[in-house]
């Protein structure tokens, strides 16, 4: 099914989930959608619903309450799916590491495919991260890129 694999790479729909971010990264994620960066060029659409998403973009460190929600949302995304941890906090917990209410990075709860560090992350870096995720996906699917 070559056409389906090609399409998977051409049409990653993302869902953005904010754990307990300071909103710095969130604003940068939204900036990607603005005319300046326009990620829809690559077929990237921001969905509000895990059931329609292919890529879960997570910002902020996981805390004890959001861990449950994150797991639920991840389970509701149909396969194949990718997870991108956006921002230092999402990668490792960042400055919140070892806080009493913080579990740490996103990978403490769900498997992460791509880490995009930065505080806050630049939109270019986020786009890079998505491209990297797509490359990883295409490698997994065996599509030449």
């Amino acid at each position: 099914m070559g056409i389906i694999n090609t399409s998977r790479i051409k049409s990653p729909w993302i869902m953005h989930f904010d754990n307990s971010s300071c909103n710095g990264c969130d604003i940068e994620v939204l900036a990607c959608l603005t005319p300046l960066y326009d990620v829809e060029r690559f077929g990237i659409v921001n969905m509000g619903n895990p059931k329609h998403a292919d890529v879960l973009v997570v910002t902020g460190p996981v805390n004890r309450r959001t861990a449950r929600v994150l797991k639920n949302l991840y389970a509701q995304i149909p396969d194949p799916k990718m997870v991108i941890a956006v921002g230092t906090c999402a990668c490792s917990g960042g400055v919140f590491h070892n806080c009493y209410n913080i579990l740490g990075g996103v990978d403490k709860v769900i498997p992460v495919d791509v880490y995009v560090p930065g505080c806050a992350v630049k939109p270019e870096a986020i786009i890079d991260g998505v491209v990297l995720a797509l490359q990883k996906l295409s490698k997994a699917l065996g599509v030449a890129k």
Partner: protein
Amino acid sequence: MNQWWIAIIAIIVAPIIGGFLAGIDRKITARLQGRYGPPIVQPFYDFFKLLGKSRIATSRMQFVWIYGYLVFMITCVVFLVLKLDLLLLIFLLGFAGISFVLGGFSSKSPYSHFGANRELMQILSYEPVLLLMALGVYAQNGSFMISEIVKPGAAPLLPSLWPIFIAVLLVLTIKLRKSPFDLSTSHHGHQELVKGIMTEFSGPYYALITLTEWYEIVLVLGLVALFWANPLWVGIIIALAAFVLELIIDNIAARMTVGWMVKFTWAVGLVLCVLNIAYLYLIKGGA
């Protein structure tokens, strides 16, 4: 046999046209917003990607109704190209819409219920206008058959049915789910109703809905084109112009409430239709 071939070709070609129209829609919308936009074939990428996703379900019945939505929409397109009964076509379109609504009702999800109820209100808004359009065609032609509209030598409908045409443009906005009437499902994420009636459909079944929407675009634009069926290319140009007009309205309008939609379409659409039909009835002296 000829009829079968026309039907088969329509079933194959209609979604391709619809898909490209959806791509053009996204491109023009992006340009209107100062963006570059996705490639024209982007809807096809989305479609095939969705087909390849794994299937997840919240209930069995929701899938059953989606097939109903698709098959009845295809039937409508076949009715259009085979030039059958316009009134019956509109009733069949109603079944398609109701199937979709029932699919939305089939899972215990608040968002999909919101969407389904709003979709019902949309049906309540546009159904009378479409039925009155059929009656207007009858008033003009003395027949409900589409073959009578497109037969060579038949006078174009637009000059005598222009008020109904305006009302049908309103319906077009609702059917294409454009602002200010993108009520039952939102084309963009991050809204209070998530994805409305489509929330619980994912993967291959979302692809089926997309496919149905492509058929729907072709169907409703075909209905618009009927207003100038001789020569048909004028009608097609009018339909495409109407489509671009809808995109512009979509980008300059905010979403309104459901109640406003019903009131507005009835107050404007129905009244235009009624005046049009009353005028035709009076000049033709009945029947």
